[in-house]
């Protein structure tokens, strides 16, 4: 399954949408993670907060290819996109293992094949280095075999843009 998460307040063209099985617009109209871990211990793979992100971990977990388009915020994701990722830790289980010689959680859905991040907006050189490290760490946590970060000012109309 190909999943696109983006924080751009635009209409994505139909041909672009057709490339993806799920297109998720990060509009920020949902609550942030409360750090309760109940998506592990009480209602596995379901967030206890009843809004549009309640089952988001299932969509991200089932993605073979995950594409994220996000504005740069200090070398990290925008709040709306980060909120989606924070609310999706149910892609893993509470049990721990070693990956990359470090402690990580075992993955409920197995790893995805690739993670590709498009970063938009003004990005300093230092922030670019932060992004590279962040995406590398995310890929390790999500069990992705490949990862890529692209710094690009995408046009307002995504039509024709190869994501």
């Amino acid at each position, binding site marked *: 399954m190909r999943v696109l998460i983006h924080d751009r307040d635009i209409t994505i063209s139909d041909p672009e949408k057709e490339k993806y099985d799920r297109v998720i617009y990060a509009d920020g109209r949902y609550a942030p993670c409360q750090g309760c871990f109940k998506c592990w211990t009480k209602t596995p793979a379901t967030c206890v907060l009843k809004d549009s992100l309640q089952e988001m971990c299932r969509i991200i977990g*089932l993605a073979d290819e995950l594409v994220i388009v996000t504005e740069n915020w200090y070398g990290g994701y925008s709040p709306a996109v980060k909120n989606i990722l924070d609310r999706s830790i149910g892609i893993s289980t509470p049990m721990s293992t070693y990956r990359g010689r470090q402690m990580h959680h075992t993955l409920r859905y197995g790893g995805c094949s690739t993670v590709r991040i498009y970063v938009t907006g003004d990005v300093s050189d230092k922030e670019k280095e932060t992004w590279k490290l962040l995406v590398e760490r995310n890929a390790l946590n999500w069990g992705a075999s490949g990862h890529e970060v692209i710094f690009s000012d995408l046009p307002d109309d995504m039509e024709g843009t190869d994501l």
Partner: protein
Amino acid sequence: MKTVFIDCSPKKRLSASGFIMGLTGLFVFGKKKKEKLRTPADHERIMSELADADNVVFSMPLYVDGVPSHLLPFLKKTEMFCLDKNKDLNVYVIANNGFIEGKQNEPLMRIMENFCDRSGIKWCGGLGIGGGVMMNVMRILLIVFLGIALLRTLLSGVSEGILFPAWPWIIYGKQILEVLALGCGIIVFDIWLAICINSKKEYGKHYTRIMLPSFIFILCADIFFTIISVFQGGIFRGWFSRKKPT
């Protein structure tokens, strides 16, 4: 000198970030103000405290290799405020993650450093802690153990007629020492951080952890989550199943 401590954990109470921040605060002198940042309703109150502050300490959990999402809008407001007022501020960070390796907090530290660069304020460094949640659990256990020691003292008084037996308190003393041994890295680096705050010096980036071999920590974490999942019922609701979107 005024230092504002901000507990950025979204948890209402008993957060590990708040506990470790409080520990640091014990060794910081001058005027201190502790704040809790959970919702946008907290922003204005904390901003008003920052107006006349010399230092700010952000204490937060690591979420998906970065800062928790609810903190980002506050950072943006702080950036605007500092640029507008040409504010001098020393920024220190305490980051805590649920894994054993403190080094896993590195991307979060860099994000906070980038925030300081954009805001024109001074990045003074941070302490990244691995397994700090265990210190949090241990401090709760110490309170439980204190209750057990008191109960043993009482029962001993009733059954043996000894008013203040030593043995329950020797056991309790050993339990305190065990906690101190497990957390010695965190405590030492915390005191060092406080010394730097007091002298407004750069701390640099340092990483520490709970003093346990990682395979024992993993075993403890697995047991902890299994027990919680049994009590909360998650273990019976497809604990590991690959659930599909409904």
